[in-house]
């Protein structure tokens, strides 16, 4: 069964064998940055952990789950139309929705939407283009929709179970992203790997994403309701 093969491949020599390492590199990068920021300045912010702790933690986990998919797509470079569109849509949607939700929960709908759309569209395009213009377009549309939806969901849950909803949405997104990893594996089982790279991209992308997220959440502009 190919699912079992996929699980075995997580310990193998193909790019799938590097996915878990990518998660760990990304998590380590995020937590080191957050720890440095916390010890140097964030701990002096009133109610920092109850207000922002869980959302920053979930943001770090989200980037650690999105970036392995990006690495897997980069490794094979080109895909047929349908898998390419699915890649653009899934990565665009999830990488727009989750950051949009976390920023929406602390800064309001406008800033959450803008940030979610920016991350979603950027990653949607970068990955969707693996199948040409169709995936490119799919990436833009999914990133745009995911960013707005994430922020809107957060703002509408502000006096409801905002934190619990964040955890549930993160778990669902994780399952979708792991499903995408499996789909890419199935589609590329017979293909040769096109790009072999170290973890510089993962570390750099995590550094940028978590730094902007933290800055926006703590010091960034806020909508009227959040001032």
């Amino acid at each position: 069964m190919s699912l079992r093969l996929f699980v075995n491949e997580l310990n193998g020599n193909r790019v799938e064998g590097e996915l878990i390492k990518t998660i760990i590199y990304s998590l380590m990068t995020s937590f080191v940055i957050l720890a440095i920021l916390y010890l140097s300045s964030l701990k002096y912010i009133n109610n920092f952990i109850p207000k922002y702790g869980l959302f920053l933690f979930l943001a770090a986990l989200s980037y650690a789950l999105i970036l392995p998919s990006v690495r897997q797509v980069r490794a094979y470079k080109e895909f047929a139309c349908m898998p390419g569109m699915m890649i653009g849509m899934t990565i665009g949607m999830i990488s727009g929705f989750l950051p949009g939700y976390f920023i929406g929960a602390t800064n309001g709908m406008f800033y959450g939407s803008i940030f979610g759309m920016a991350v979603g569209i950027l990653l949607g395009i970068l990955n969707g283009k693996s199948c040409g213009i169709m995936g490119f377009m799919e990436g833009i549309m999914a990133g745009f929709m995911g960013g707005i939806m994430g922020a809107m969901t957060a703002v509408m849950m502000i006096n409801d179970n905002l934190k619990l909803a964040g955890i549930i949405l993160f778990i669902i997104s994780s399952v979708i992203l792991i499903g995408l990893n499996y789909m890419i594996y199935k589609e590329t089982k017979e293909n040769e790997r096109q790009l072999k790279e170290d973890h510089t991209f993962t570390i750099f992308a995590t550094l940028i994403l978590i730094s902007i997220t933290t800055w926006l959440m703590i010091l960034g502009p806020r909508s009227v309701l959040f001032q």
Partner: protein
Amino acid sequence: MAHDTWAKECFVPMKNTTILGFVLLIIIAGGVFLFTKNDASSDDITGNAIANNEIQKITLGIKNYNYYPNTITVKEGIPVRIYLDKSVPGCYRSFTIREFGISKNLRTPEDYVEFIPDKKGTFTFACSMGMGRGKLIVE
């Protein structure tokens, strides 16, 4: 040679999936810790209506992303008038109390909703989308 064989037998590299298992445990522990940390400033804030010329008046503002105060106590049978001050933004100005048939967009701080609380109990007031909400206690 014997040393190499011994090293290979004793230091078997951990599988990626095993490492992931350990990481997941740490993540779950961290998540539980952060999830259970509550924001002390988000507790309920109680306010009583001010009776004036046989009308109980109350003005709601916004604090911690919700109506302030978010628990109001009023007396049964005496008309209640609720205003929203200028700090209340956007769709929070669309004010509803379902049990008393109240649903009105209070565009300015001078606009109000008025009703007679004719039954005792605890009722919910909210914006029309349910994002901002509070309790109305009729005694």
